[in-house]
């Protein structure tokens, strides 16, 4: 770093940390890959069940359902939207409607309509956050609660069952030996990655999260971009919920509980900045892989549930702390 670079009117107050930045930089890029390898290594030592194709396929399938939400949540964090807490509602909307509407309009239209209505919840979130300027935590919590209430009222608070075995078979089936759910997740992840890293919408998302005022003054439609992140997340959650419903062939209103937490954990552990402006879909997915493998290994190792929660909590705090530290050092 040159002297000229340091003289930017006090912008870079942390230039005294530049020395360690190479090591920190390598860690921030490859740290997660090492962590994933370490967990796999540990897993294969503690449990002979870990490295079986059955177990890994299970992990992959359950990871895929959360993973679809993670792709959307990445946009919310990158755009500076903190988090979308309405995920349980949009998942429930996707799951309940895609099963409940099957007898009325058929499985595929039911699925599409379910995802569309989930997207509508996202649109409400987006308008409140992006255009009205309400804090995202409050807005998504409120809209999520309302949405869940409506879905519960619509189905009378009971469990909805699937009535179309063909669609269930498809969702639980495999294509070229790979579970369909996993394939759908991969396609969504690829599309999400392309949009965030290669499209103008993605660049706008990063700019809006990086410096909202400067993006606005650069003719970026910041309000729409911010709102869009919540729509993307809701659509993803709707798809995720629909697939969950189809695979389980039953859906209760609280089916999506905890998914918001898992998705946020994965994104944050993946090193996507909680204050926006930095992050990518592959990073978030790496975070997801790590968290899912760790959870799986803990389960196989017989670690008690409270301890598992404890470990995940530490992971989140550690990841957010790391983000803050990296931000200071100007690596991320």
């Amino acid at each position, binding site marked *: *770093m*040159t*002297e*000229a*670079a*340091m*003289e*930017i*009117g*006090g*912008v*870079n107050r942390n*230039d*005294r940390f*530049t*020395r360690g930045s190479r090591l920190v930089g390598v860690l921030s890029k490859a740290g997660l890959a090492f962590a994933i390898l370490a967990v796999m290594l540990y897993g294969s030592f503690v449990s002979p069940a870990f490295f079986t194709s059955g177990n890994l396929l299970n992990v992959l399938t359950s990871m895929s359902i959360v993973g679809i939400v993670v792709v959307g949540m990445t946009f919310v964090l990158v755009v500076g939207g903190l988090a979308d807490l309405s995920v349980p509602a949009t998942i429930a909307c996707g799951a309940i409607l895609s099963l409940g509407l099957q007898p009325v309009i058929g499985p595929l239209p039911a699925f599409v309509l379910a995802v569309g209505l989930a997207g509508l919840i996202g649109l409400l979130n987006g308008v409140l956050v992006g255009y009205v300027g309400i804090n995202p935590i409050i807005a998504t919590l409120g809209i999520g609660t309302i949405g869940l209430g409506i879905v519960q009222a619509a189905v009378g608070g009971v469990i909805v069952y699937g009535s179309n075995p063909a669609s269930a078979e498809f969702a639980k089936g495999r294509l070229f030996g790979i579970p369909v759910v996993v394939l759908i997740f991969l396609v969504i992840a690829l599309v999400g990655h*392309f*949009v965030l890293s*290669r*499209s*103008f*919408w993605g*660049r*706008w998302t*990063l*700019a809006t999260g*990086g*410096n909202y*005022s*400067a*993006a*606005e*003054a*650069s*003719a*970026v*439609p910041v309000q729409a971009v911010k709102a869009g992140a919540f729509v993307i997340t809701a659509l993803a959650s709707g798809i995720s919920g629909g697939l969950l419903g189809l695979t389980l062939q039953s859906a209760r209103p609280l089916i999506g509980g905890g998914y918001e937490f898992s998705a946020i954990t994965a994104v944050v552990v993946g090193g996507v900045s909680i204050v926006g*402006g*930095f992050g990518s879909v592959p990073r978030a997915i790496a975070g997801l892989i790590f968290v899912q493998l760790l959870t799986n290994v803990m389960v196989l190792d017989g670690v008690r549930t409270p301890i598992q929660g404890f470990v995940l909590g530490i992971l989140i705090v550690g990841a957010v702390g790391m983000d803050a530290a990296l931000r200071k050092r100007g690596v*991320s």
Partner: protein
Amino acid sequence: MTVAADCALDMRGISKTFPGVKALSDVNFAVKFGTVHAVVGENGAGKSTLMKVLNGSYAPTSGTIRVGGAEVRMRRPADAQALGIRMVHQEINLVPDLSVAENVYLGRMPGKWTFLRKGEMIRAATAVLDELGAAIDPRERLGNLSISQQQLVEIAKAYAAQPRIIVLDEPTSSLSEHETAALFRILRKMRDDGIAIIYISHRLKEVLEIADEVTVLRDGSMIETRPIEGINAAHMIRLMVGREVSNVFPKSPAEIGKSVLRVERISDGTRFRDVSFDVRAGEILGLTGLVGAGRSEVARAIFGLSRLVEGSVTVNGREVSINSPSQAVRAGIAYVPEDRKGDGVVPGMSIRENISLPILRRLSRFGRISRSADHALAAESVKQFSISPPDGERRINLLSGGNQQKAVIAKWLAAKPLVLILDEPTRGVDVGAKAEIHHIIGQLVAGGMAVVMISSELPEILGVCDRVVVMRDGHASEPLLRSELSEERIMALATGEEMA
């Protein structure tokens, strides 16, 4: 030079090396009590590094520091404060939601344990503000004050700590000339109290006015320390850049064409009313006035960053309705904002990503940004505006202020606007970059662009602009031709004071 008793600060042989860069090499710097000592130099000359050594943020690689004759070692800013060294930074570092008095005594509030003695604090703050001749109510919420008043509070805060040495870093960058005069009265008062004042500024005219001594830094070395008598701006610039800058404000003559942007009787309902002017192709229209007169507000409203409640905006004879910056860009208007850090650059992004931001859709097909067009645009801009370092992939916040500003201007020129509005385009940039920016503006108008330039610096306004509109309290004067203008006349219009 001997260490005299009146020597407040004596830095000897100061070097500071960062990995790969020698930021300061063997700098000697001495300041006497009861003097104003200016430090000048281009961005990157080492002024900030030297001050960070002085305030304990950096430990020097080698060299000794004496404060009041005694050798000291400072490991952190608190050490410097304990020695009576106070910094007033370019940006305001105060808490908007606290009162003026609470800000003045922030961190050193009187009172024991948890209970503040509020009355005592307000009395003390009143005394300090009175002493400085600042008419500010200590009970007022800081956020309600103008930027220039906040700057005075910042200085009062430093002064209240009864320092021996005060460092002021570009204190006038957000002040109008009128307010600068008030600041100078305060500085002279502090000087007469025996405080050593280190004054860092790019504004050489002010340095000549206020300083007793001046030190010139260039490329991390001390070039010269000398009394202010017998030196002029041209000489100082020569020492700073190591070359002659022939004309500080070169205005290349451009052919003036038809009117491009016309605003008629625009109001935003609160901060400006009934503002009318027009800019013609090939013309630079100056917009000046005191800070807070509504200049930036007019620009931001024309660009769609805030709403107009009345009036019309026409571009090339066609009335346009602008409610967002993207509509302004479509109408052919571009705006380089005043607050470069806040509104100009996206810090985590590269030069390339910043430059293409307003025209991303034009560079995209089916939503995908054309990689080659994106990179070509950045390469071309970097070359055309000689942005340094010439690397489009460099993160923009790692550039100097002047180079960031060039990148922001490049960003807007990529949108090929008909009208370019520049809000304080040369604020806080060094002499060399300033000349370059003026050169760029000159080329743009030569190419037929219409330019509106907002500036508080009257020599710049008078040197660059063809016509000038002076704003006062949200009202705009008639456009005045350069030939009928002088600094005195502009100040008279800006302050509403009758001319002598």
